[in-house]
């Protein structure tokens, strides 16, 4: 039971990075990203391959952030003016493209079999491997949170919020909007990369089917639940999504009227319902966003 709780918390922390990243892009700057899983996946594969080659976890995380961030930069450059409509299509397509590469390029990443035997090279004396991992991941998430929070509340965050509200105005006061948008996109991708690296290291096994579009949707849900733009809210939203997705697995042992497959479907329904209620309450008739 405790082990199970630790597992849920670890997932929540891992998705926390991905959601904080999306919050910088979408919540703060207004850049829609339907393919955040791509940067998550690239971070995961990057860490898997490099830690297997003997790199310690921390440098592997940094490398994952750099690789995913650069890829985010490339996507930004290939999306004309980073306009919302293009961005939705490009990010969604790109994430499937990345998944298909990992699926089909056996030499690179094991193809459909994925990569097994990824090291989890962290232990804190006196704690078991899982708990050590949770502590370290949580400390790193706290750093990411601190960074996001400062970013949002510093003048640069004001500029990003202004871009979300009205890009034309920001250009009219002499600020290079495209540079800021690219920066936000890169930062968000880099955070997702760190999340992916932790994901690979925690599970010690990854395969392409773990990186489907549903992951992108979950983090979109987390950011939306947490009131788009709020850093703390994003983490709270992530916790809710993690509990709804992972926590409901627990029910399997108690509920016998439905089988496992039905329960999996029920979990998604619960998430969908939670989203609909929140959106209705928050943005429904008579309320402004």
């Amino acid at each position: 039971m405790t082990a199970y709780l630790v597992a849920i918390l670890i997932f929540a922390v891992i998705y926390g990075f991905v959601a904080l990243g999306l919050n910088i892009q979408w919540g703060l700057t207004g850049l829609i990203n339907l393919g955040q899983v791509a940067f998550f996946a690239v971070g995961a594969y990057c860490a898997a391959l490099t830690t297997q080659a003997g790199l310690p976890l921390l440098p592997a995380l940094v490398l994952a952030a750099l690789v995913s961030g650069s890829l985010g930069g490339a996507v930004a450059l290939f999306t004309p003016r980073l306009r919302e409509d293009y961005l939705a299509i490009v990010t969604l397509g790109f994430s499937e493209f990345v998944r298909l590469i990992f699926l089909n390029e056996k030499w690179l990443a094991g193809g459909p079999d994925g990569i097994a035997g990824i090291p989890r090279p962290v232990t804190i004396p006196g704690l078991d491997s899982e708990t050590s991992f949770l502590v370290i991941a949580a400390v790193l998430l706290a750093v990411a949170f601190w960074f996001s929070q400062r970013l949002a509340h510093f003048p640069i965050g004001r500029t990003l919020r202004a871009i979300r509200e009205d890009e034309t105005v920001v250009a009219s006061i002499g600020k290079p909007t495209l540079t800021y948008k690219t920066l936000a996109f890169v930062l968000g991708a880099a955070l997702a990369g760190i999340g992916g690296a932790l994901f690979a290291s925690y599970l010690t096994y990854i395969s392409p089917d773990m990186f489907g579009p549903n992951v992108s949707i979950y983090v979109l849900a987390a950011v939306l639940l947490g009131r788009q733009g709020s850093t703390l809210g994003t983490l709270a939203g992530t916790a809710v999504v993690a509990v709804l997705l992972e926590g409901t697995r627990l029910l399997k042992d108690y509920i016998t009227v439905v089988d496992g497959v039905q329960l999996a479907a029920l979990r998604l329904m619960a998430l969908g319902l939670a989203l609909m209620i929140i959106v209705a309450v928050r943005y429904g008739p008579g309320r402004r966003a």
Partner: protein
Amino acid sequence: MSNLLEIAGLNKRFGGLQAVDRCELSVREGSITGLIGPNGAGKTTLFSIISGFTKPDSGQIRFGGRRIEGLGAYEVARRGLRRTFQIPRELKEMSVLENLMLVPEGQFGDRLLSVLLPGARVRQEEQVNEAAAREVLETVGLAEKADIAAARLSGGQKKLLELARCLMSRPRLMLLDEPTAGVNPTLIRHLMKVMQKVHASGITLLIIEHNMNVIMELCERVVVLDRGHVIAAGTPAEIQQNKQVLDAYLGGVDA
């Protein structure tokens, strides 16, 4: 004195409509110049081209002697040429004060690096920045509204905020798109004083305006645009008696 802004042979077509048609125009440094013309004459489009938001099909724009027609909007703004929007574009979710504190260029806090370093430098910069913003709000008469959300301003106050945002950067040239439209008469008097004050402080103004009293009182020179083409230019008194101008306006009413 020399011309701060010079436009030659400017053209812009939207589908079948020639919105700007072989436009020639100059603005003397240190002047207040009026730009008038019937609805749909292409005045706003001209502003949009000058400020780099719309690409012209052909023609030249010189600002301070240098060509600017190929530059992006933010680059034009950085050279000290700023515009307001005919329909105010206040940032609704921000306070009036924040709307202005956003403006100053080269803020250290606007760089990613600042997020990773101790906050003292940014805090200090923000204090200076806030004082400057409050002073500008004082100048335009919005000081009491500094801390409310910009969305809650009245139409006239939003016009003032547009002006304030433009003023905040102390540009060389301001393009004001109908600064008094929708503003009540008392506020218009106030706005005219503000514009005179801004002008006296050394900023050149090019103003689109439908209110002839404002034009008469403020402008030393008026340029008349009709269907994208300059049909007359001169002192306000000359323009008021120009037959072609009267025809253009009457034609505008018919159409």
